[in-house]
């Protein structure tokens, strides 16, 4: 036997006018009590359905129907006379294709986020910031997209200037590593500009770029020199190096000779050869300032300082009165009774400014 819902539906189907091709259904359908096969439960529901279907309350009044039709047509005529609202294709597309709207919204959101991140990254100056890599990438892309060497050089000068300005926040003992990185980046940019200009053929463009670069160099030297007093010795060393590469007059040491006195814990004479050593320059032993009296003797700057036999310094340097610093690892440590013979205490074969990573066996007593 069919379920009740099916039986009810069958009865309603048979009773509907449509099923009888517009003719009236037989009496037993409109009055189920006369049905040949009685189904009391279904009969009750069919009766209720017929009651709802034929109830005058659910039928619109003829006059009302006619009046409303006239009213609707008038309303339509009024609407038709109004100038049509201009609907552009895009809003209609958004309304008719919800998936397109969602996709568009997501694209816009991603674009907005991406742009925001790029803008934020462009203003990042701290190499510790994760966005600094993104900024580097942005700059690299911009330089790659530049359509001529002149434009590439101009961009590099611009980026170098930005970096120079950001160094002001890093020139302090709390940002040592970051400062090293920023100076290295600056050096890379400056070298890039210099080699680009060098490769350019002579002409007004090259002259213009050269002028820009020269003025940048002056600005950079002035800025970096301003940082020197607030830096520790290692950072002063790399800053002085950078100043040298920018064409500034900075000290440069070639070699050092140390002759300790015969008395243990006595004094030593330190003779330093190099360029741009200024009168009054202080002695640095492994990055520490030593109290010493210095004077020029020929090409040498000779200093007398307290010394211990147990000291074997790796770096000897000078601190000029203008705060520039130079160091060397080319050190000759002579015995107290050695004449001109060298005992060969040089710690490395390198000349020039060291990086001050080495330490003496025993730290000299500093004097500030």
């Amino acid at each position: 036997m069919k379920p009740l819902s099916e039986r009810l539906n069958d009865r309603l189907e048979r009773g509907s006018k449509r099923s009888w091709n517009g003719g009236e259904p037989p009496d037993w359908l409109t009055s189920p009590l006369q049905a040949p096969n009685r189904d009391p439960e279904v009969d009750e529901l069919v009766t209720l359905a017929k009651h709802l279907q034929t109830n005058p309350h659910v039928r619109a009044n003829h006059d009302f129907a006619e009046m409303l039709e006239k009213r609707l047509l008038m309303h339509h005529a009024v609407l038709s006379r109004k100038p049509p609202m201009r609907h552009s294709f895009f809003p209609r597309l958004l309304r008719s294709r919800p998936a397109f709207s969602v996709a568009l919204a997501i694209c816009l959101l991603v674009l907005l986020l991406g742009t925001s991140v790029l803008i934020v990254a462009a203003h990042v100056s701290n190499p510790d910031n994760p966005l600094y890599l993104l900024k580097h990438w942005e700059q690299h892309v911009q330089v790659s997209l530049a359509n001529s060497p002149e434009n590439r050089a101009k961009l590099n000068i611009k980026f170098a200037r930005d970096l120079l300005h950001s160094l002001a926040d890093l020139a302090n003992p709390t940002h040592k590593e970051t400062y090293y990185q920023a100076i290295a980046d600056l050096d890379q940019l400056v070298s890039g500009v210099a080699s680009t200009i060098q490769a350019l053929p002579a002409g007004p463009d090259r002259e213009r770029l050269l002028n820009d670069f020269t003025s940048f160099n002056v600005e950079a030297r002035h800025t970096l020199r301003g940082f020197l007093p607030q830096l520790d010795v290692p950072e002063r060393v790399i800053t002085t190096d950078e100043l040298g590469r920018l064409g500034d007059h900075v000290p440069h040491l070639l070699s050092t000779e140390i002759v300790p006195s015969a008395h243990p814990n006595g004094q030593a004479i330190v003779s330093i050869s190099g360029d741009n050593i200024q009168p009054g320059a202080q002695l640095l032993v492994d990055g520490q300032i030593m109290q010493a009296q210095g004077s020029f003797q020929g090409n040498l700057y000779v200093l007398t300082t307290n010394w211990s036999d147990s000291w074997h310094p790796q770096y000897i340097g000078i601190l000029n009165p203008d705060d520039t610093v130079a160091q060397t690892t080319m050190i000759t440590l002579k015995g107290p009774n050695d004449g001109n013979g060298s005992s060969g205490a040089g710690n490395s074969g390198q000349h020039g400014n060291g990086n001050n990573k080495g330490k003496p066996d025993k730290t000299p007593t500093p004097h500030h």
Partner: protein
Amino acid sequence: MEAISRQLDLARRGESEALSQLYRQFLPGIFGYIATRVPDRATAEDLTSDVFLKMIEGVSHLRATDEAGFAAWLLQIARITVAGYYRKREHQPALVSLEPGDQEEEGVGNSEANLRNYPSLDPAERAESQDEWNSVVKAINTLTEEQRQVLIGRLILGYDVATVARMIGKKANAVKALQFRALQSLHRQLGKQGYSERLNHVHIPQRGGKP
């Protein structure tokens, strides 16, 4: 099917005749739906007018291309209109008439309608008929929206199960089940009020007449 599609196309383009035909075809269903949701005829007529005015205003943006889709769209407008009517009523303070006897007649529209619908009935019978219909409206308002739409589609608009299924986005079996549960629920509700008992004895006027 093709005829209604063509009518819808013409209506979208603003053809008055197509709009009139659509109106005439769907007035019984929409009026029937609203009349089973609100207690008095005058309100049902007002709300029906609102629904068809909205139809005129919105038909140019209509996406439906078949009868079931169009019926679903109109019933959706009707549902929202009725919901708006009840929402407004919630926020309106109850009006108490100062005229004696006013409260006995809930609405002039109902009295007139009863007079038109039951010209042979005396005033007492007409009042009884209105009370009975109020019970039906209350019972129908307890149904779910889907059950109501199935009843309107099947009983008032006279659609077959397949068309109603497309209209409400369900399968045919689900429509049959909804139809059964709707009638069963109504029967139960009305039975509590002794209405079903009277159904078997009260004369049911035959369907016919204009729209």
